[in-house]
């Protein structure tokens, strides 16, 4: 288990990490969420010793992370980077080798990844000659070429087109299924909800919410009520007892209500303003939880 424990880090007056604590379990994927500037990148960099925290520790199975352990981790930084003039295969093999692979293992693994991502014909082209999407694939391979036990990916989905995003999702699912501990940061909450069993939300350097997505939803003090109705309901919906907020999404009224509130009463009151054609009563979405957590 990868454990980030009580990390503190400040740059002068700016506090980047304020007791940040969370865990990544092998065989599970953790979505690491937070607004811009919340400390996501600083926390991820501290796993790789790129940032030295003022206090706190990062451990893997109870052991402090040193160079040998780190060689078994894979990292995709937020700022993507490859040597533009180096051939894709040579480059991947190089990353494999600096992680301790033998020459032939590194070469085979690089070739394997390029084949898997459909780039076998471009293996000996300089990276700068590849399309943007293909460069992203090489970038992903660079984090995976040494078959790491832990994968830390900073915004892996940013800048990907739908095909690229689905390739990325497939690879992450497969790697997780192999028993790897995977953590990635993202602003695309729908995607995270779709992929991850666990989430951690960081805000102002502190974890404000973490756990299994489903359990978090069930335990949440709010519920989501979606209504499709005829009539001028807008005026009254936001003012009903137990309704925290009301908005209209795609012509549908979305109410966030207290879990303790009797939904039948809310529905009855809505009926008085118009005809309810369709309704959904469910646990809040990850986006709802996120907004609550960082409010």
């Amino acid at each position, binding site marked *: 288990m990868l454990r980030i424990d009580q990390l503190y880090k400040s740059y002068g007056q700016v506090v980047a990490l304020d007791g940040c604590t969370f865990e990544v379990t092998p065989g599970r994927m953790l979505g690491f969420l937070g607004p811009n500037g919340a400390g996501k990148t600083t926390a991820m960099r501290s796993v790789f010793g790129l940032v030295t925290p003022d206090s706190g520790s990062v451990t893997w199975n109870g052991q402090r992370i040193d*160079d040998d352990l780190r060689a078994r981790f894979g*990292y995709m930084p937020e700022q993507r*980077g490859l*040597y*533009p003039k180096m051939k894709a295969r040579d480059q991947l093999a*190089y990353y494999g080798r*600096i992680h301790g692979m033998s020459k032939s293992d590194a070469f085979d693994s690089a070739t394997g990844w390029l084949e898997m991502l459909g780039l076998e014909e471009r293996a000996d082209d300089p990276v700068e000659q590849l399309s943007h999407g293909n460069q992203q694939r090489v970038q992903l391979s660079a984090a995976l070429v040494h078959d790491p036990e832990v994968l830390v990916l900073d915004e892996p989905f940013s800048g990907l087109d739908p095909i690229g995003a689905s390739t990325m999702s497939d690879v992450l699912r497969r790697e997780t299924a192999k028993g790897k501990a995977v953590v990635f940061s993202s602003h695309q909450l729908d995607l995270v909800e779709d992929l991850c069993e666990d989430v951690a939300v960081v805000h102002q350097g502190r974890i404000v919410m973490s756990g299994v997505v489903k359990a978090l939803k069930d335990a949440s003090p709010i519920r989501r009520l979606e209504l499709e109705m005829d009539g001028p309901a807008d005026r009254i919906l936001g003012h009903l007892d137990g309704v925290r907020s009301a908005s209209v999404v795609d012509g549908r009224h979305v109410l966030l209500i207290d879990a303790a509130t009797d939904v039948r009463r809310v529905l009855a009151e809505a009926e008085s303003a118009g005809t309810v054609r369709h309704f959904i009563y469910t646990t809040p979405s990850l986006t709802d939880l996120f907004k609550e957590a960082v409010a």
Partner: protein
Amino acid sequence: MTSLKRIRLVAMREIRERGKSKAYIISTIFTLVILGGAIVVPGLLGGGPSNHHVGLIGDGGDEIVATAAELAVREADEGEESDTFETTRFDTLEDAEAALDGNDVDVVLVDTSEIVIAGFGGFGGPGGGGVTNLLQQAASTLRVQELVTENESAAEVISILSSEPLTTRDVGGSDEENAGLRGVIAFGGLVLMYFAVLTYGSWMLSGVTEEKTNRVVEILLSTLKPWEIFAGKLTGIGMLGLGQMLMLVTVALIGIRIQGSVEVPDLPIDSVVALIGWFVLGFLLYATLFGAAGSLVSRMEDAQNAAAPLSIIAVVGYIFSFVALNDPTTLWAQVGTYFPFTAPYVAPIRLALQEIAWWEMTIAVAVTIATLVVLIGLAGRVYAGGLLRFGSRVKWLDAFRSAE
């Protein structure tokens, strides 16, 4: 995996990728061609025998030309062909000058009293250097011959006039045969050192900045320590530089041998070894600083500016070193030997000219290595602090302080 192995991997990548880059191959070939040309071409152009075309008016000219041809035979080195002469007789000065003007003849001899030339035509051109000198010498030989008694043969007079009657003895202390060669090595070594410091320093500069520009550095740093990357780059670029340098020296030696002016096997081995040793020290000293400068900027356009103070030190050090080249015994030359940024220039010069004591050399090496150790510590910290700070240029002190 040990640090040594990681450093080797970084160095090997540097050698492989940079070594096969067009920039490296073209710059190597270009430098080799220029160097080879500079050594061999003048020999080919000026070295061979020439045929002088002399116009004659009046009497006595034939005799002078014949004597000049004899002198030319004596002056030519053994086994080499000598200059030859061809004459054309003119009736009037006008005709002769017209021929001179049209380059049909190189010079015109009027009786035994006057040589007419058409301006200075370059060292090998008409009327230039060789032919007028030979004719002047021949004329004076003939005049002296008229003064001496009948039983003195013409050949003997010519022999006296064309030889050096006084022998030369050099009491400068250096062994005479190598003195010239030592001067050449001192100067050539200085130029090579200067070339190496600036060229390979700028490779280090751009190599470091490049990894920041394309953001590879963050991936590297997730596995490698900053000093391992730095040491790997220094080693790789140093080896490529040394390789290029040895190629240059080899071509220079072959060129000199082809030209045949210097005996190559006589090369003083101590100078050559010292030059290579100092090349390594000088490269490390400057490239370390250039590398640190490279870590401060995120864009190639800013790299040269960040390194400007270092380039100035390198250039000033080079210019300063001519003091030692002119006179390796002056106080300034001694001061330069112990100052780490001039030592890699000055110490090999003084050694090549045999004007340095062993203890002076020891101190110079010790001072430079000590400085190098301190600089690697400082530069390594600046490098580590500057690497992950993208955007505008980082100040030296800020980078130093923010090192993790």
